[in-house]
């Protein structure tokens, strides 16, 4: 990938992110922030590659924490977003019984 192609990707992705979010209703702001938080959990693949190419004990230690943190970002982001969006499932019709409490 040449630098200029990378720049094109960067520009197009930036516009995409802006457009995707620009029409979002306020009620979805928190779930969407959580969802985008999950999406940057893709850092996991980079962390895996970094650890996979680490050699010295220092590199391996840092790489280990990198993968650990990235996995936390991805899985945690997914779980909380899913839990939040779960609540929007059947809210068209008023529900009578509140959940567990």
């Amino acid at each position: 990938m040449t630098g200029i192609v990378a720049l094109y990707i960067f520009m197009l992705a930036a516009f995409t992110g802006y457009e995707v979010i620009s029409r979002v209703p306020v009620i979805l702001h928190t779930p969407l922030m959580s969802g985008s938080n999950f999406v940057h959990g893709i850092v996991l693949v980079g962390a895996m590659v970094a650890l996979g190419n680490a050699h010295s004990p220092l590199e391996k230690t840092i790489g280990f924490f990198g993968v650990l943190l990235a996995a936390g970002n991805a899985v945690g982001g997914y779980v909380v977003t899913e839990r939040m969006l779960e609540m929007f499932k059947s809210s068209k019709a008023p529900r009578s019984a509140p959940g567990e409490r």
Partner: protein
Amino acid sequence: MPATPAPWSAGSLIQASYFVTAVLFITGLKRMSSPVSARSGIIWAGAGMLVATLVTFAYPGMSNYPLIGAALVLGAALAWWSGKRVAMTNMPQMIALYNGMGGGAAASIAAVELYRGGSGGAVGTTLAVVGGLIGAVSFSGSAIAFAKLQGLIKRSIRFPGQQIVSLLLLAAALLQGVLEVAHPGGSGVYVTGLLIFALLLGLAMTLPIGGADMPVVISLYNALTGLAVAFEGFALHNAAMIIAGTVVGSAGTLLTQLMAKAMNRSLGNVLFSGFGEGSVAGGGEVSGSLKTIEASDVGVMLAFAQKVIVVPGYGMAVAQAQHKIWELCQLLIDRGVTVRFAIHPVAGRMPGHMNVLLAEAGVPYDLIGDLEEINGEFDTADVALVIGANDVVNPVARTDKSSPIYGMPILNADRAQNVIVIKRGQGAGFSGIENALFYLDNTRMLYGDAQKVGSALIAAIKALG
């Protein structure tokens, strides 16, 4: 040192999979921006993540698989456990925490690549340095945001010359970065310096910011982590990271602007003014006295009202009162009272925080109005029921130019015939500003935990038969 194998020439399966991942992410985010399809959105994005993660095991030239597997399982298990356990009211700080982890991961990638001597030449090293700097700031900054919202840090820590210290730390981190680019593959001392200064910068930037501004700060760090991931993606020639990171970077920036706009403050103001604590509370004195009322009287007032507008705030979240409040409102609706919920964009600790809680309790969308929709309706409301909200209903924001919140759009709760304020105690709100609403002639204070007060109100209305 063996160079990183150039992934662009590696298996086309990996490239194709990353392409699919990018498509799934963008589709997922798109679906998440509409209430009807939101739930499926996260599943699309999740599928993308799964594809990318699995295919990365087939990346050429990798070793340390046991370490990768162990870190993956450990991190995933901890996050799964904590994410399933956390209460809905604590979502904002969990998002801050997971976001900080992402920033830390980006910084770790930069550290490993740079300690290893890098392979991308000056451009690659520069990108790794910038990503590492941003990632480390996001890591320590998000950790502070988490600690503040979780109540681990109670006060904002301020000292004279704070902004100068931040600027010096930024300059020091940048200097280390420049030295690293100029001397690639050196002893690694510049990398260490870069990361330490960046981590300190995150602390120095976030410690002085008050809790009221945390939604904006978390959103900003979310965007920053996205950018850091994109930069590390450039350094690693990883298209999935570039696209996902950039999309989050721009979407997060927009979201941050929307939030800052709702508070009528610029981002610079949020970061550098130190608003949000009692110590800077300004504005004129408020005259008048607080008038209290009993729950039984409020019950009667609500039961015989034509129209009630509920204004929920952080106090409702803290008391976990959303179920009780909805139960109360259903009773009122059964009696023929028109009930609406008015949500201020920055009520609670995150934009949409109140919507999430009300959705959890089962409140239908059509009863919920945002600022513009509902502000005209307060004039015709018999009762505005303010539950643990404070600054977002403070009329001082309209009138008092010396107030720190002057100009912030507020909900016009003061225009209702009667205003009932349910509040834990007599203290000021998160911003520390006296609320003129509480002293109005048509306002009555109902002190107590929102959940207990809710129960008392339900009992009072049921007693009416």
